[in-house]
């Protein structure tokens, strides 16, 4: 279905004027990685480029919608001095996401974390909000059970981040509450005063369990490394998970009891896979 590939190219052209200029000038070179027919490349070559430029606010609108999931990251970006977040729409991450039909919001967060690498606070919180963004989008459960395998329930995710990230996130979120129901607009209007900010560790990490609650909010809790290692290995066979428990010091039959406890606590469940 190459018409769908062409339609995704069209979206990229609408969002990225530089890409559009390159594609109209030499579609074969600019779109070498996209499987288009010669006829489809010809339609692009023959297109009038002017209607692609009719909506100058397209990037701004989409950026605003993306930032709704990144209020703490935005507060830190603005606190550290502005960054060109609009550049996301010209990034390889954006183009790849469109061409491969992915959800944009988690990818934006990972792009922001990479962009903010010199700013340890922003990078850490962007990674955390990217993980929350991914968790916000439920995955379709598998239809077939996998015998003797256990998995983390779909409402959970694990994140291993610089130590102090969750404390920093909680600190920024507390300041955002004061901004009312539309923190993104308020942040852009008034530079945020975030007080004395915790600084995540440059080397040590913390393991976080993220849980999507029924009302759409999240619970974030820190896990002991041993438990995080075990849960991070799931989905896996019961035997493999017991081996991880033993590697962390659980003697039989305690290794099996650990899994039974996690099952009864709802942190593990029988694994399924798509048919």
């Amino acid at each position, binding site marked *: *279905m*190459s*018409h*769908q590939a*062409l*339609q*995704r190219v*069209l*979206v990229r052209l*609408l969002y990225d004027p530089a890409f559009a200029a390159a594609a109209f000038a030499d579609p074969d070179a600019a779109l070498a990685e996209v499987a288009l027919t010669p*006829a*489809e490349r010809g*339609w*692009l070559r023959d*297109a*009038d480029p*002017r*209607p*692609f*430029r*009719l909506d100058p606010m*397209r990037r701004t609108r*989409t950026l605003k*919608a*993306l930032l*709704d999931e990144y209020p703490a990251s935005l507060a830190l970006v603005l606190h550290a001095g502005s960054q060109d977040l609009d550049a996301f729409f010209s990034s390889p991450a954006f183009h790849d*996401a*469109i061409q491969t*039909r*992915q*959800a*944009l*919001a988690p990818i934006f967060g990972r792009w922001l974390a990479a962009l903010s690498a010199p700013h340890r606070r922003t990078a850490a919180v962007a990674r955390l909000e990217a993980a929350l963004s991914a968790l916000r*989008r439920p995955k*379709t459960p598998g239809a077939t059970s996998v015998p003797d395998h256990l998995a983390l329930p779909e409402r959970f995710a694990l994140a291993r981040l610089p130590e102090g990230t969750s404390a920093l996130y909680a600190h920024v979120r507390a300041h955002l509450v004061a901004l009312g129901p539309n923190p993104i607009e308020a942040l852009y209007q008034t530079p945020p005063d975030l007080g004395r900010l915790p600084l995540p560790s440059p080397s040590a990490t913390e393991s976080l369990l993220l849980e999507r609650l029924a009302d759409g909010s999240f619970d974030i809790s820190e896990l002991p490394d041993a438990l995080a290692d075990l849960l991070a290995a799931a989905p896996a066979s019961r035997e493999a998970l017991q081996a991880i428990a033993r590697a962390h010091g659980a003697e039989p039959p305690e290794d099996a009891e650990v899994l039974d406890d996690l099952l009864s606590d709802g942190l593990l469940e029988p694994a399924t896979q798509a048919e």
Partner: protein
Amino acid sequence: MASPFDRRLAALPALGLGVSTEYGASTQDGALDVAALSSGHPSYARFLEVGVEVDKGLDSAARAWAASGRPATYHFLDINLDEPEDFDAAWLKGVSSLADALRPAWLCGDAGLWHFGPRDRAQMLLLPPILCDEAASDQAAGIARLREATGREVLPENPPGHVYLGDLHLLDFFARVLDRADTGMLLDCAHLAIYQRARGLPPLHGLDAFPLDRVVEIHIAGGSTHAHDGYAYIEDDHRPEILPDTWEIAAHVVAHAPNLRAVVYECERNPLPACLPGFERIDALLASAASAPLRATQAAP
């Protein structure tokens, strides 16, 4: 011999002239007061076309309309008909549930790209399909799938757009969709006018070869002309004033579409007094419609 569509068509009611709305539209400043229109000019609001995103559901105004038992149609705003992966079980369940609440005469909506990638708030937009034969087949497959899943007629609409790619004229593309999906169509006269202008074609170009007997519903809406970078185009802004190109198309279709059942005047963002001249003009046009059921419905008190 009657085709399956002809047999299904016989079961579709004539709705007459109606208006459209979306979630929360009735509470916007300056929006059309559908309740006031319905009570003061009932022949202009014989049905309500409700724009629906499953994630948002129906607002209180749409639920109140449905509860009153008055006719409605369900206009989807969140399905890429040509993408099989868009038909996930949760969405289909949501559509069925909302359709049960609204009890629409049929489902309809733009057969285009409502979102790029998965259905996601930041990824909403509306683009026309690539106008090629393969895309027509994929659109048709999606229409048939949605019809089968919901048990309701699904009418594709020609979407608006400024950028069109492909080797088919828009009407040729939709003629193939209608044939392959064995379905009727919602022809948006304003969107067609935008397309013809973008291609430098006269408003009625291609309509003589188009199966107008498949047109079950039309949209008529106002627009405005602009130029940017030397490029002249029509903005589909639903202002009350109907452009001459749109009106020419609407008049032609109403006079030649024998199975037309419903007409929406899309003016939902404008106050009632500004819209009344448009309603009067469309109402007068429908008095000479080729469709007898539409004429009869619109002439009823």
